[in-house]
């Protein structure tokens, strides 16, 4: 569904992504793993149209999205749940969710709202509360809920487990499997190597703007170099 070919991007004269090839097929969970500062956030910025690629091609669902605006990318159904949540703190939980369907899925807004509330009963309880007053875990639920309001055809989750307690991290990965179980393809961008590899079908390891390793989750997990560098084994 998502095809990225020899993607290069950066800031000013500094190139961060130095030629990436990546694909996500229908129904897959694909993980992009790597530590801080290897280009994960830059990759997401390019995929969501916040940053222009210098070179390369992004195709989604047969359409070329290289250089498209964020609005067009959302319109196409490629929905990005950003790192740090980026919810609207001054607005109520309900308003945050409603804005999720600003560009896409507006006709079925109330039905989708009900669906999100069923997935996250906690958000229903707090629907009138200002989003900025929610706990970190609740804000992460809200960010994902807001993404679901746009009826994603592919969901990019950027560091969804960041800053959550171990119990909530476990819950987050259960949720990711559940969303995927309903047929939603997910691109999971994470630092949490162990748990991401448990739920992903394929994985890419990003190092210094290049994919150092890629393959099925099984292959990646058993790679001796990965074991040494990321798992300390």
């Amino acid at each position, binding site marked *: 569904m998502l095809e990225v070919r020899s993607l290069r991007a950066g800031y000013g004269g500094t190139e961060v992504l130095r030629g990436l090839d990546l694909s996500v097929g229908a129904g897959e969970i694909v993980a992009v793993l790597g530590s801080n500062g290897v280009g994960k956030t830059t990759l997401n910025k390019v995929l969501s149209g916040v940053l222009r690629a210098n070179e390369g091609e992004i195709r989604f669902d047969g359409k070329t999205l290289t250089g498209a605006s964020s609005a067009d990318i959302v319109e196409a159904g490629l929905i990005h749940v*950003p790192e740090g949540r*980026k*919810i*609207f703190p001054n*607005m109520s939980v309900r308003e945050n969710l409603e*804005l*999720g369907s*600003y560009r*896409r899925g507006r006709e079925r807004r109330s039905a989708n709202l009900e669906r999100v509330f069923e997935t996250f009963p906690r958000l229903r309880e707090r629907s009138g509360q200002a989003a900025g007053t929610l706990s970190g875990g609740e804000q992460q639920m809200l960010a994902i809920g807001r993404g679901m309001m*746009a009826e994603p055809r592919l969901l990019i989750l950027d560091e969804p487990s960041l800053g959550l307690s171990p119990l909530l991290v476990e819950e987050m990965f259960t949720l990711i499997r559940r969303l995927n179980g309903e047929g939603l393809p997910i691109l999971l961008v994470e630092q949490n190597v162990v748990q991401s590899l448990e739920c992903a079908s394929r994985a890419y390891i990003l190092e210094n703007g290049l994919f150092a390793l890629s393959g099925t989750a099984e292959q990646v997990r058993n790679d001796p170099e990965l074991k040494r560098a990321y798992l300390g084994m």
Partner: protein
Amino acid sequence: MMYSPAIIAEAVVNGLMTGAVYALIALGLTLVYGVLHIINFAHGALLTAAMFAVWAVYVAFGLDPYLAILPLTPLFFGLGYAVQRFVIGPASHGSDSNILLVTLGLSIAIENALLAGFRSDTRTLNTDYGFQVVELGPLLLSKPRLIGFGAAVLVTVLLWLLLSRTDTGKAIRAVAKEKLGASLVGIDVAHVYAVTFGLGCACLAVAACLLMPTFYVNPRIGQAFVLVAFTIVVLGGMGSIPGALVGGLFIGVVESLCGLFLGDSLGQIGIFLIFILVLLVRPTGLFGAKA
């Protein structure tokens, strides 16, 4: 010196009526600040331009200033939209200090264009209701200012409804606090900026129409109003809509009472005393969020 309660009451009501129009001018300023996070230095010049527009359509077509609200509000919305989208936005390259300079330059350009076109003469409109009064119990109230009060409050309420009930309004509030999050739900941030700037200019057009029956216009008139409007924005809290309304009404009353007790020419002294007091005691303003 003591005045009878009726005179003081009249001064208070008069102050509220002036204050409502101040509030409308402050509303445009605070909205643009709240969303674009810049002080729009061109606000005064745009108000002057709007007042000249009211004067011009009256002289050219005999269009009543109140009826002029209908064509001028959308016209100034469009003008504001275009200025932000095609001048300020592209010229700023995303840097706030550039935007300040661009709006400052814009204000100089507009003011001098008006000066070249209309000379420095002061002009007034002569409507037949300009000096009419309405008797309200013991109070004698100026009819055009009463209309101005009603219309200004109505516009504030409409703007508040727009921001809290419509998708466009919600998008504006979203962009105000979380630009990246807004882009990621597909909100076109450049468009929202331009709509916001347009709304600010539309407020000015309405304010100009409400002012002209009792006020005069010359190419530098806007500055005086914007100085007061800026005080209101600081008093009410930068970016706060209820703050602009309450602050505007309050400043109007202060000016009116100071005028009564200290003499007309000293009326504005109270405004600036309050400005200094607010900065000393509560720099975030009445409704402002903590920085």
